[in-house]
């Protein structure tokens, strides 16, 4: 947060330095971009991560999201168009490493969008997921594998 | 100056809202609501005199000229009704002060009453047909709340029927509005009148007028009164009196406006149908009143008789009959309020509603008994009380128009009124006293005060007819000749 405010301050400074007749958004944006560059160069001085890296991680997470969504949809769609349904649905549990509301929520959302799985319940301590799988025999392992991927991506963003 | 026209509607609305903030200060609520009604009475009286002297008054909201904006049109007819409605409301409020109970008062009772009045006054004053719908809804919503407020089994049950029928009626109103807009493309009542006249009120337009007829008949209780007896007999007395005095009147007002201003050109069809409906209404009301065994039933069917009688005036449609309808409308407001307050008081005093279970009240409460008797005489049309002049005028109109069936049924109804109300008087006020002096429930000053106020109005409307007639004549002049209204509303002429 401090980095972001600093960035804004740089942009403002830039705008003031330009000393134009009136306020221009474009000037402000260019000042902001310059601030980004300055901060990226300097961020190790502060001993924290570069704040826009988190943004990058979010984009990565979203991309993961979309990919999973696509593949899950295709999987479900395939089931639907298969002339004879041959699925064995069921409910299984998964205990997560994630902590905190935001992390758990993000995981639940991602899981629900994964092929053939819907989070049905969460234990009271928000540790154990109860997941409904569309075809438990075929996909359980695959789901558990992608949960790992998600947990990692989420922690990238939050920690 | 013309901004004053909005006062009868906006003042009660704003007061109602302010009372919401004074929820726990019941005394303050009473004082403010009564002062509000007093102010409205003064303003509408002043407006009435202005309108009589200077012609129809108009208020274009936001300054948009008709037919594009919404407007209030104050003619003598509307303002007379506003004035009387406000007086009656004041009386009912006074009655409510000592009867309605703190639980109701803290549940915004006075706010709802004021909102009801606002809706009623707005309906009288508006010159825009869609706005009439909206004003109706203000009134109806408030009435829905009032009829059901604090209700038990029976009250809620009857309220539900009342509300459902009225909801359906409201949507029918919108159907009629849709048709009307589709056909004539305007909403201003004067403009509609011009366009309908221009098209010669062809069958399509007459069909639309009949849709309006059904809709307003539902509100007025003309033939379609099925909602009325149940719902008028369940709410607290002051509310029932308010309903009896105001609700059907608004419907009748709308009917009169519709068929004198907007669709006056096919009386052979529309007014004949109204006449037939009025006759059936009267007969049904007479049957109900004669056959009633409890006081509330008898009183509610008397409301229906009143509707039928006033609508006879509209069905006849000539100047005298319309004058009579206007006059009778005012009388009916006051007298029905008096009747319902009396009936409610009887129930309050005895805990009974069946006529034959009460007896000898006049020994315990002589003034009350005589006030009831006065109301009875007024409702029968016994001169020189309020019902007489309207009756005479409608009778004259019927004879002049050659509508003898209407005449006969209308005047027969007076006898049914007499019979039914006299039965209450004889059985409940006369006869052996059943209440020993120790068990007498005292009548509070406020209750008696409201009865006396209404009784005074009943007498004044009769004896003071000379002061009222000029206004009634002014009102009827507009009803007979819609061009007066149109000229006042659309001075710039066509389009």
């Amino acid at each position, binding site marked *: 947060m401090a980095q972001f405010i600093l960035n804004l301050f740089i942009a403002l400074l830039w705008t003031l330095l330009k000393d134009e007749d009136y306020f221009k958004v474009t000037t402000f944006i260019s000042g902001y971009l310059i601030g980004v560059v300055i901060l990226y160069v300097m961020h190790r001085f502060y001993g924290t991560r570069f704040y826009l890296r988190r943004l990058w991680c979010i984009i990565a997470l979203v991309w993961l999201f979309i990919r999973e969504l696509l593949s899950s949809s295709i999987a479900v769609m395939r089931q639907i168009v298969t002339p004879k349904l041959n699925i064995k649905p069921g409910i299984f549990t998964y205990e997560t490493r994630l902590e905190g509301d935001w992390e758990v929520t993000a995981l639940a959302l991602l899981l629900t969008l994964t092929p053939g799985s819907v989070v049905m319940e969460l234990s009271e301590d928000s540790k154990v997921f109860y997941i409904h799988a569309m075809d438990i025999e075929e996909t359980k392992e695959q789901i558990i594998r992608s949960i790992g991927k998600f947990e990692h991506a989420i922690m990238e963003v939050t920690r | 100056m013309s901004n004053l026209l909005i006062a009868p509607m906006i003042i009660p609305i704003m007061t109602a809202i302010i009372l919401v903030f004074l929820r726990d200060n019941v005394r303050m609520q009473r004082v403010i609501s009564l002062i509000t009604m007093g102010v409205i009475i003064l303003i509408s009286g002043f407006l009435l005199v202005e309108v009589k002297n200077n012609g129809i008054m108009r208020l274009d909201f*936001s300054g*948009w000229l008709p037919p*594009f*904006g*919404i407007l209030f049109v104050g003619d003598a007819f509307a303002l007379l009704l506003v004035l009387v409605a406000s007086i009656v409301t004041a009386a009912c409020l006074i009655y409510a002060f000592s009867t309605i109970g703190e*639980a*109701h008062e803290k549940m*915004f009772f006075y706010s*709802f009453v004021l*909102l009801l009045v606002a809706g009623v006054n707005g309906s009288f004053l508006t010159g825009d047909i*869609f706005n009439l719908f*909206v004003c109706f*809804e*203000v009134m109806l*919503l408030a009435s829905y709340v009032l009829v059901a*407020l604090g209700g*038990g089994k029976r009250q809620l049950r009857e309220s539900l*029927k009342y509300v459902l*029928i009225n909801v*359906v009626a409201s949507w029918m109103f919108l*159907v009629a509005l849709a*048709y009307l807009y589709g056909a*004539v493309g*305007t909403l*201003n009542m004067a403009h509609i009148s011009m366009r309908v006249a221009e098209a010669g009120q062809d069958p*399509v337009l007459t*069909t*639309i007028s*009949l*849709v309006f007829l059904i809709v307003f008949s539902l509100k007025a209780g003309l033939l*379609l009164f*099925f909602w009325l007896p*149940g719902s008028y007999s*369940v709410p*607290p007395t002051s509310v029932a009196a308010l309903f009896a005095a105001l609700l059907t009147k608004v419907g009748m007002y709308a009917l009169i406006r519709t068929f004198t201003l907007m669709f006056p050109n096919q009386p052979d*069809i529309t007014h004949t149908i109204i006449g037939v409906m009025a006759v059936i209404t009267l007969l049904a009301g007479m*049957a109900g009143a*004669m*056959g009633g065994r409890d006081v509330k039933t008898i009183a509610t069917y008397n409301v229906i008789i009143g509707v039928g009688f006033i609508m006879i005036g509209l069905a006849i449609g000539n100047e005298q009959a319309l004058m009579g309808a206007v006059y009778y409308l005012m009388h009916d407001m006051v007298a029905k309020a008096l009747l319902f307050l009396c009936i409610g008081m009887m129930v309050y005093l005895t*805990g009974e509603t069946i006529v034959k279970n009460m007896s000898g009240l006049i020994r315990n409460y002589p003034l009350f008994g005589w006030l009831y008797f006065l109301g009875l005489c007024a409702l*029968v*049309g*016994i*001169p*020189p009380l309020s019902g007489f002049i309207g009756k*005479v005028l409608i*009778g004259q109109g019927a*004879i002049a128009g050659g509508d*003898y069936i209407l005449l006969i049924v209308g*005047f027969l109804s*007076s*006898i049914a009124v*007499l019979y039914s109300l*006299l039965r209450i008087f*004889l059985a409940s006020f*006369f006869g*052996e*006293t059943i209440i020993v002096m120790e068990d007498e429930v005292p009548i509070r000053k406020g209750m008696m005060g409201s009865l006396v106020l209404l009784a005074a109005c009943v007498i004044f409307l009769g004896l003071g007819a*000379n002061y009222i007639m*000029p206004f009634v004549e002014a009102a009827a002049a507009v009803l007979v000749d819609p061009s007066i209204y149109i000229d006042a509303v659309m001075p710039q002429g066509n389009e």
Partner: protein
Amino acid sequence: MIIKLAVLLPFLMAALIPLVHKHIKREHIGWFVLAVPIVLFIIISSFIPKIADGNTYIHTLEWIPSLGINFTTYLDGLSMIFGLLITGVGSLVILYSNFYLSAKELLHHFYCYLLLFMGAMLGVVFSDNVLVLYTFWELTSVSSFLLIAFWHHRKASRAGARKAMVITVSGGVAMLVGFLMLYAITGTFSIRELVAQVDTIQQHDLFIPALICILLGAFTKSAQFPFHIWLPDAMEAPTPVSAYLHSATMVKAGIYLVARMTPIFGGAETWFWTITVVGVITLFWGSFNAVRQNDLKALLAYSTISQLGLIMSLLGVGSIALAFEFDEAATPIFTLAGFTALFHLINHSTFKGALFMMVGIVDHEVGTRDLRRLGGLLPFMPLTFSIALIGSFAMAGLPPFNGFLSKEMFFTAMLSLQEANVFSIGSMATWIPVVAWLASVFTFVYCMIIIFKTFFGTYHPERLDKEAHEPPFGMLISPFILVALVVLIFFFPNVLVHYILTPAMASVYPTLPLQEITPYVSWWHGFNLELFMTLGVIVLGIILYKTKRYWSYVYTFIQPRNSFNALYEWVITTTEDGSQRLTNKYMNGYLVHYFTYIYIIFVGIIGGYFVLSGAFRFDPSNDATVETFELMVVCIVAIAAVALLFSKSRLTSVFLNGVIGYGVAFFFIVFRAPDLALTQLVVESVTTALFLVSFKYLPDIKPEIASAAQKWRNGIIAVSVGSLVTFIGLTIINYEKFEPISRYFEDSYELAGGKNIVNAILGDFRAFDTMLEVVVLFIAGLGVYTLIKLRNRKEASDVEDK
């Protein structure tokens, strides 16, 4: 002016009584009140010479001038007679009742009503304006009602009061209609002006209806057959009241009206036949029934009915005089009937008043009026007996009492019908006198009954409540004054004729020369037919009286259940029960039925006219194009709607309703209404949410138990309503006579500074709607809150909730 005060004085006094009665000793009220009629009598009497000279007095006080309704008093000969009767008999009655009524009674009520009545009655006779006359007319009914119900703890009093009120007020209403018709013809409510326009009136189509309406008023008030039934029941009133209202004054208001209207309607065939025939029937029926009565007061009531019929029939015969041009020979023959009517009117008031007071005395002193318990009172009450004797003999038409004079003249008048060759009178000219004579026979019989059954025979003290003795002297004053008049008039009738009757004749026959039509009254006309008729009456009367027990079985032919009374009761109960049954049948509290009625009327009226008028038009050629997906939405919405009908669970129903709502929102999009679409979407969702929330407190829908017939009926109604809405809609789509006003709003930016036209309309052009819509919303919100929070507190509201 002074007459106006005369009318108003009783009212003022009546209003004063409730205010001051607490400060006066009860028994004194009557004495204060007595001053009123006495003063009035003196005032009116003071006009006698001037009126006799042919003057009339008129004064107007405006009430509703714009309607021609003004309080105009008119003093002439006719109103003079009545004015004197009202105040004169009034004075005597009040004097009498000061002794009759005990101080324990609610005297202030009694005298208040009595004064009210007196004022009203004076108003009736002195009003020139028929609507004011009507006003007072109804007031007499009201005050009579109050007096009959004076002892309202008695059931019979209440019943009698109601019957009297209903019948007389109904008649009054009819009379009002008649007056209104006269107004429609002439444009005036003034009797004098009506008389002036008599030609216009008689030519008019409304002449006969007006005549009948007015006669209905007169007949009900004067207890003419078959409306007489209220009068016997009115005897529940205290006896002074009976003497005053129900014999001397109020019941004569109808007579007054007929006399007053004679200048207007007289000479018309209908007028003659109706009045004469009804009068004669009443005359006969009253006397015939009087004979069978066991209650002295009831007997007098029937006797009064009979006598009123007599006067009425006389007025009928008298009206013939106006049927043709004045003829010196013929006209007086008929005007004599009118004259006799007025004469007998006075006579009847004197002897009948005395008789009523006599009955009151008997009742007061021995505690009963039942002829079966009475008898042999003569030794104990000789003075009372003399009153009874004089009164009865006068009524029977025996000399030397005034009744003899008028009865003789009555026969003359009836016989004069033989000479009438108008109105195709035919054999009725014979029958009417015969019936009249028969009636006189019965009159004689009941007069004998009054005297002999009360004062002769054996005295049975055990049958009486009290020991018989003469009343206090005060109670005898009034009846003695009356019987004195009975005798005096017999001996000096022509004083009365000159001062009172002649001016009254001028009022009844204003167009005829007064000298020619005023007869000289004498008690001896030689041995003419009338005398023999009187002798016949006496002979046959004595025979019938003696043989009564042999022929009285004829009364069993008229069982109580066949009487008019029974008819009245039957009509009342049938109407009540029938009304109740009818009302309960359709007003059964069943909302489904109510909706059914409403829809049937909706379709009936609108559909009926729509079809008959041929307004329907259908022309889809101007329609906008239909896209496939639009059609699909239409289908989806329609299917969802139809599916809703078969939905068995409420959640499904609500979801389907949501589908329709969203479909509507989509139409709003397709039809270019973005604001609507947004609103509809949100509102639909919130509504659905509300349904769901409410469902917690409602049960699930049970399958509709309805018969196939009901389902069909509902289906047919639904389809007809739907198609009616569609057909009218289709017609209106193609109705293109007018441009909508909405082009104006397209300049919303210039006019209202907004680029969203709909929003500009809502926020500016029609902001008032929006303002009120907010109010509606507010009421609903607050209403929901109160509805939920305010529970029925059982104990507190039980009373109101019943």
